[in-house]
């Protein structure tokens, strides 16, 4: 385990260098225009050279056995670079769902492929009403008589990288309640339609399932507890990505405020601009501290991890959106152009804020996780 700051710095530097070379702004813009919304060559190099997809997957499933602290470092850097990649869907949503299910056979079947970068995977939870609450799931799972298998029928929305995933983990309802099911790409009856997204750096799809053969992951009826755990982990991981993006917005603003002259002075010498940047710094420091603490508590298996994850999700959602919004203002007209990257961060920040439901649900989740 990397438990020293030096090791984490080394990891951060390796990822940062990799992304600087493979995902500069020109590459982000190229990737977001393609059908797959990512560069398969970069995905392959990320797995082969840096072993990133397996970073937080246990050794017995072909990973390197690190935790959310290390994964958080990687996600911060990916968020800062706006990397277009199925990493979040595969490594966070899908891999963590499999691990949370406690289903060793399913883990042994799917996780080594994910760790090796050979399997792109995702989690399909939300439906037409956009809720991640498994109690709201209407997709049905029917036992196939005689076979021991299942078939799923329903429609899933907002499925991240759903159009390219080799493996889709679907939350569906059987007579015992919600549960998790695995669906392979190319399964008969599965149709994926890309959605037009506010954030072009993150692809989403609508999946239509008609009598699609599926395998149960974990136990019947355990979907409620499982999704609660997965959402805590996903919120903490997303928080790291948000904190990284927010930090990059602050750096862009500070650099611009130091070098852009108006009225014969750098604009950063005007208190109106200076204080805007200081306000961004405050929100970025808070977001980063909250995200890293959530990762640390997850790795310690601490009882207050769910509350810390919920708080980090709120702080990082607000902090990133604030930094991305103010970044455009600091840049003035330039920041409003298509060519400037500020809007890509704004789009990512807004999309991340609302991905799991936004303020309409994240406040109630924090109160729930605090147990008050």
């Amino acid at each position, binding site marked *: 385990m990397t438990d020293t*700051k030096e090791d984490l710095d080394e990891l951060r530097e390796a990822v940062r260098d990799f992304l600087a070379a493979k995902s500069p702004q020109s590459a982000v813009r190229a990737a977001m225009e393609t059908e797959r919304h990512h560069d398969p060559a970069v995905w392959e190099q990320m797995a082969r050279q840096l072993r990133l997809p397996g970073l937080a997957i246990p050794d017995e499933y072909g990973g390197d056995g690190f935790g959310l602290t290390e994964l958080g470092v990687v996600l911060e850097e990916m968020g800062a670079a706006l990397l277009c990649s199925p990493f979040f869907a595969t490594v966070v949503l899908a891999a963590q769902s499999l691990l949370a299910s406690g289903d060793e056979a399913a883990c042994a079947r799917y996780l080594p492929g994910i760790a090796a970068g050979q399997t792109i995977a995702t989690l399909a939870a939300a439906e037409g009403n956009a809720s991640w609450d498994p109690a709201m799931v209407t997709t049905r799972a029917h036992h196939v008589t005689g076979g021991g298998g299942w078939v799923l029928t329903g429609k899933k929305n907002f499925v991240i990288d759903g159009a390219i995933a080799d493996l889709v983990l679907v939350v569906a309802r059987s007579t015992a309640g919600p549960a998790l099911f695995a669906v392979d790409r190319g399964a008969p009856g599965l149709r994926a339609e890309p959605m037009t997204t506010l954030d072009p750096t993150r692809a989403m799809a609508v999946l239509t399932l008609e009598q699609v053969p599926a395998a149960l992951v974990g136990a019947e009826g355990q979907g409620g507890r499982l999704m609660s755990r997965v959402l805590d982990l996903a919120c903490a991981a997303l928080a790291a990505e948000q904190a990284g993006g927010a930090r990059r917005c602050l750096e862009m603003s500070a650099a611009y405020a130091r070098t852009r002259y108006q009225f014969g002075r750098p604009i950063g010498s005007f*208190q109106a601009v200076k204080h805007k940047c200081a*306000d961004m*710094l*405050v929100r970025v420091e*808070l977001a980063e*501290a909250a995200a*890293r603490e959530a990762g640390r508590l997850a790795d310690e298996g601490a009882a207050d991890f769910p509350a810390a994850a919920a*708080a980090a999700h709120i702080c990082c959602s607000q902090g990133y959106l604030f930094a991305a919004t103010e970044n455009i203002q600091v840049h003035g007209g330039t920041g409003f152009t298509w060519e400037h990257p500020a809007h890509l961060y704004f789009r990512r920040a807004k999309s991340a804020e609302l991905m799991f439901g936004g303020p309409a649900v994240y406040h109630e989740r924090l*109160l729930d996780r605090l147990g008050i």
Partner: protein
Amino acid sequence: MPDDMQDFTRAVRDFLDAHAPRAAEPGQFRWGEGDDRVAYFSADPPEAEERKLDAARGWQRIRYENGFGWISGPPEYGGRGLTPLHELLYDAIESEYEVPDTGTLSVIGLGMIGPTILAHGQPASKDRYLPAMYRGDVIACQLFSEPAAGSDLASLQTRAVPGDGGWVLDGQKVWTSVAQHSQIGMALCRTDPDAPKHQGITAFLVDMGAPGVEVRPLRQMTGGADFNEVFLTGVRVPDDHRLGEVGDGWRVALTTLMNERATVGGEGSGPAAGVLSPERLSALMRATWTWDDRALRRDLSGLLADVMATGCLNARAARRMQAGVAPGPEMSVAKLMYAQNLTRAAHFVSHLLGPRIIADTGEWGTYAWAELLLATPALRILGGTEEIMKNILAERVLGLPKEPGIDTRSPFRDLPRSPSPGGRA
């Protein structure tokens, strides 16, 4: 953690185990039970304040006699000869024990003025005051701010002129904490009005019992008087009580203020500790039948998320210090956020209480919040206004340029200043 830190930790625990009980875990908050006071400023009656002061002096003496009175100080003045990091580590460990609050002695005197005397004092003052201060016998206050010199401290006007083989001081200081308990004060005075403002200042140690020193309580907007005005009228100060060279007082003051930055920010156990806990705030919501109000629930959650994140910043700073790394900007950010969180909490609670915070019904735990509500504006001013803090963060952390045109070259006497206070309300 480095080895010597581990040895030190063990020594601290041995000392504390021998002299103080462990602090009780904060019990489950129960509505209607215990003290319902929610105050940032002490507002104790005078007898209680005296009792607390005696306890503080007594505990400081025990610390001193056991080698923990001045951990970063040099042995010749009663110090232990370790680093400021050891000091912070000691504070963190001591907070786990039930000991008297020594803030009256330590925040200004031991935290800020002691290190300044050590760095800039003449041998006579060091011998006379340093051991006495760290033993708990001498309390020191800071005679810096003036009615016309707040954020712009370097524009201070209190005069010191040579006379009687020493100096004669005339002027007025304001917002002086603990002056009523102090034996000495560190005064910044203008000795050369013809020099640019930062260059004509000299620092002195003033005997607070000397003729011409008058301490008047300053009543603040909460109604209590937790600060003072100090009037200096023809006060004589011997030259061996001068700190640093004549005209070098600004540099001396920076030593003091740099030590302030290290003491402000770790407010976790501050006077309003516990106010921001989820248990306390949710209990108040239930007691006021507002628990089901969705808008107020959102307010609560947003507030708690920031409070928890601020706690993460403090924890991060503490971990860095324990690992022997100087903290980054998180202390300044935590200070800004602490003020904002407490202010937001006071207003949030007022929305729960409604009319019960504008007139006292006598009900437990309701009108008591008025004290905190009225104290919150101070949090965004004391220890550096929010505006000055943001300038510092932007300039030192983000490297943004300073405001041009701030006159640091003209003689002080030629600088424009506010109209004289004669006409104010």
